[in-house]
């Protein structure tokens, strides 16, 4: 049973991806993708029923697993090195060349093995598997019509979709492997696959900018890979074990282990694009939107958070923990500030993703049961809402040929369904009673004892509201007396979007269940009591069900008022000098001045050019503090 599940979760998506390469027709390819995704998602659900486990699958297709992974690891590094040479980037050659040499040296002379199981899943892994397999699958399915339209738009002579879906679907398997493996060399292997998938997918469109940004992603993730490898070797030499569980069990008490953990967290930071490594994720937005949704917001970047969360018991109560919390909180506030000056929707989402990842990492750094709960819940809720928002932006972009939020004015009329779903996505990102805010509430209450962190969280959460509120308002706005139109929405776009929007709402409603079933087993002591759908502890209380009922009632009454409204539609006020059709006003000499809206972007205060350098300097110093503190 266990081996079958592991096979379905890890190997099947990779095989499915490979099958995309060979099947001849696009309909068959679509079927393969949908089938693989459905099977993976079903397997993740049955894993939920199966519960936590640990085990050592010996063989896959009669090949010993360990040998296979070691072999593939060198093959993968070799392939990346090949790309590094074809890109003629000396730094990447150096980083990956070093990794091959160091890994070979490690495997041959240094690695100490114990009999610990190679795969291990607690509820944290299961949560990750669910997110990857369900949200990930929805995004892959969304990708089928998206890529068709994308290629039609680019007028490609020969379709590049097989290659695209190889990496997109195969990535699901690698990611599942990353979160389920307990042997740190396995984790390293899957970590490198995700780097490689990301590199290939960012560069998918083969434009100059795409290749440049893919190179940057490979470079920065290569730094992460080196940090991971060094941390791994160091941890192995200190504890004599390759099992993450055993390394964590050695805890902060083991001499010198803390620095190894800090290196692995550094790798997590690069993967999660934390400051000052944020540039690769911003560049990654050139990739087709399913890639941004899947790799660069919902799942892959969460691998970084997962690593830090996974190792959090190993640094709990140390200075390293506090330093990680401060770094995360700084990323949270600084990237939220940078997002204020942006009008490019994907860039806003990218910054906001980094910001939320920072909050999760801050929670992991704080390490209290309450903070860990906040981190894990945020991880889930953020994945659903942000995946949804990215997919919405992608869909909208294919219709209006712009990803600028200024151009999204009037969408509630021109694309009513897409606009409504986007607004739901935005609301679930920033308002109670929805999950993201629930986790943010937990995070703030958990951080209240750490003054540095709490001040940054307070400012950051206000900035977040600003970013999303004006976007939502833009979506709602409409020209005077515009008649609603019907915009086409293919079934395979509509279904994933609605599933994610519904999921974001329903999962928030299920937050108390999620907490008791999946988060509680992870923490030493229960941070909250659950009664009547309310999370309570001596410090605070969050009324999940009551608020759902009350605010739900409010929303329902509002909706009823809208439906029953007999309000006259008046033209907007233009000082009385309206044009006859009220689309603008009469200017000097009666010249018509059409109405134009424009958001405040406060570039004078929050501009990227004004802030980025100082923020990077600050983040670099904090990072130095973190690494130095771990020595």
């Amino acid at each position, binding site marked *: 049973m266990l081996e079958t599940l592991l096979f379905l979760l890890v190997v099947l998506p990779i095989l499915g991806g490979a099958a995309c390469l060979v099947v001849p027709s696009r309909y068959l390819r679509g079927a393969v993708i949908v089938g693989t995704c459905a099977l993976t998602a079903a397997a993740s659900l049955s894993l939920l029923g199966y519960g936590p486990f640990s085990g050592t699958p010996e063989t896959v297709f009669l090949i010993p697993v360990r040998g296979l992974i070691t072999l593939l690891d060198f093959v993968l590094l070799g392939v990346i090195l090949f790309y590094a040479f074809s890109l003629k980037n000396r730094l990447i050659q150096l980083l990956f060349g070093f990794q091959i040499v160091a890994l070979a040296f490690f495997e041959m002379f240094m690695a100490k093995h114990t009999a610990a199981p190679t795969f291990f899943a607690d509820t944290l892994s299961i949560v990750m598997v669910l997110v990857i397999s369900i949200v990930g699958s929805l995004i892959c399915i969304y990708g089928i019509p998206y890529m068709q339209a994308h290629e039609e738009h680019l007028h490609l002579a020969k379709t590049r979709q097989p290659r695209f879906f190889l990496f997109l679907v195969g990535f699901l398997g690698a990611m599942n492997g990353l979160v389920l493996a307990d042997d740190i060399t396995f984790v390293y292997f899957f970590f490198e696959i995700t780097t490689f998938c990301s590199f290939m997918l960012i560069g998918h469109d083969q434009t100059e900018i795409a290749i440049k940004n893919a190179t940057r992603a490979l470079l920065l993730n290569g730094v992460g890979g080196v940090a991971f490898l060094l941390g791994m070797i160091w941890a192995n030499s200190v504890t004599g074990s390759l099992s993450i569980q055993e390394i964590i069990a050695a805890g902060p008490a083991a001499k010198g282990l803390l620095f190894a953990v800090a290196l692995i967290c550094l790798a997590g930071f690069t993967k999660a694009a934390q400051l000052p490594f944020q540039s690769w994720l911003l560049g990654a937005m050139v990739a087709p939107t399913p890639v941004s949704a899947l790799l660069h917001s919902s799942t892959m970047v969460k691998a970084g958070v997962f690593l830090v969360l996974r190792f959090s018991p190993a640094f709990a109560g140390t200075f390293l923990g506090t330093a990680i919390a401060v770094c995360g909180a700084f990323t949270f506030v600084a990237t939220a500030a940078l997002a204020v000056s942006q009008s490019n929707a994907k860039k806003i989402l990218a910054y906001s993703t980094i910001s939320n990842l920072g909050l999760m990492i801050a929670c992991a750094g704080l390490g209290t049961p309450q903070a860990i709960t906040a981190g894990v819940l945020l991880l889930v809720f953020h994945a659903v809402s942000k995946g949804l928002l990215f997919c919405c932006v992608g869909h909208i972009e294919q219709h209006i040929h712009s990803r600028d939020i200024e151009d999204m004015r009037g969408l509630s009329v021109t694309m009513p369904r897409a606009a409504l779903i986007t607004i739901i996505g935005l609301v679930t990102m920033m308002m109670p009673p929805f999950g993201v805010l629930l986790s943010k509430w937990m995070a703030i209450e958990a951080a209240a004892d750490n003054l540095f962190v709490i001040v940054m969280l307070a400012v950051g959460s206000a900035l977040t509201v600003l970013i999303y509120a004006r976007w939502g308002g833009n979506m709602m706005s409409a020209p005077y007396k515009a008649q609603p139109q019907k915009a086409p929405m293919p079934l395979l776009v509509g279904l994933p979007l609605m599933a994610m929007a519904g999921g974001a709402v329903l999962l928030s409603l299920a937050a108390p269940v999620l907490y008791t079933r999946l988060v509680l087993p992870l923490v030493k002591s229960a941070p909250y009591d659950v009664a009547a759908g309310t999370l309570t502890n001596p410090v605070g209380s969050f009324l999940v069900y009551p608020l759902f009922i009350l605010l739900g009632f409010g929303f329902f009454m509002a909706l009823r008022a809208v439906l029953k409204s007999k309000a006259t539609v*008046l033209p907007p*006020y233009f000082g*009385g000098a309206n044009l006859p059709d009220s689309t603008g006003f009469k200017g000097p000499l009666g010249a018509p001045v059409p109405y134009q809206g424009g958001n405040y972007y406060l570039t004078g205060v929050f501009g990227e050019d004004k802030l980025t350098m100082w923020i990077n300097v600050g983040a670099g110093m904090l990072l130095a503090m973190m690494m130095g503190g771990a020595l």
Partner: protein
Amino acid sequence: MLKNMIQTSRLKSPWIIHFDCGSCNGCDIEVLACLTPLYDVERFGVVNVGNPKHADVLLVTGTVNHRNKHVLKNIYDQMPNPKLVIAIGACGLSGGVFREAPNVVGGVDKVIPVDVYVPGCPAKPEAIIDAVVAGLGKLAELQKQAAI
């Protein structure tokens, strides 16, 4: 009961908007004088809102001409019902001394229906306040007939 309260409140909260159709500013100054501490019309709940969508009473001063009649009409149309219009000063009533000019339409009532006329050149603040009160009386009369 709610209806009763609304009807009472209507008479106690006339928010005004003042539109100057090209007056010589004489009447405008008198309108503003009503808001000063000396006359203090806020005693009666009068607020000068400067936005037709929030206003109940439109005070118009000055001569209506072919250029500004569109603006006058637009502002009147943007006021939700029930609403009152008060024409102030000789010009507002009939065009005043400018009534024969080629570009002049005439009084305010050539463009929109007027409820109360305040004569004078300029009209006195007391007369303007009295006009608002008279307008409210008209509103009360309409309410009695259950027209609104």
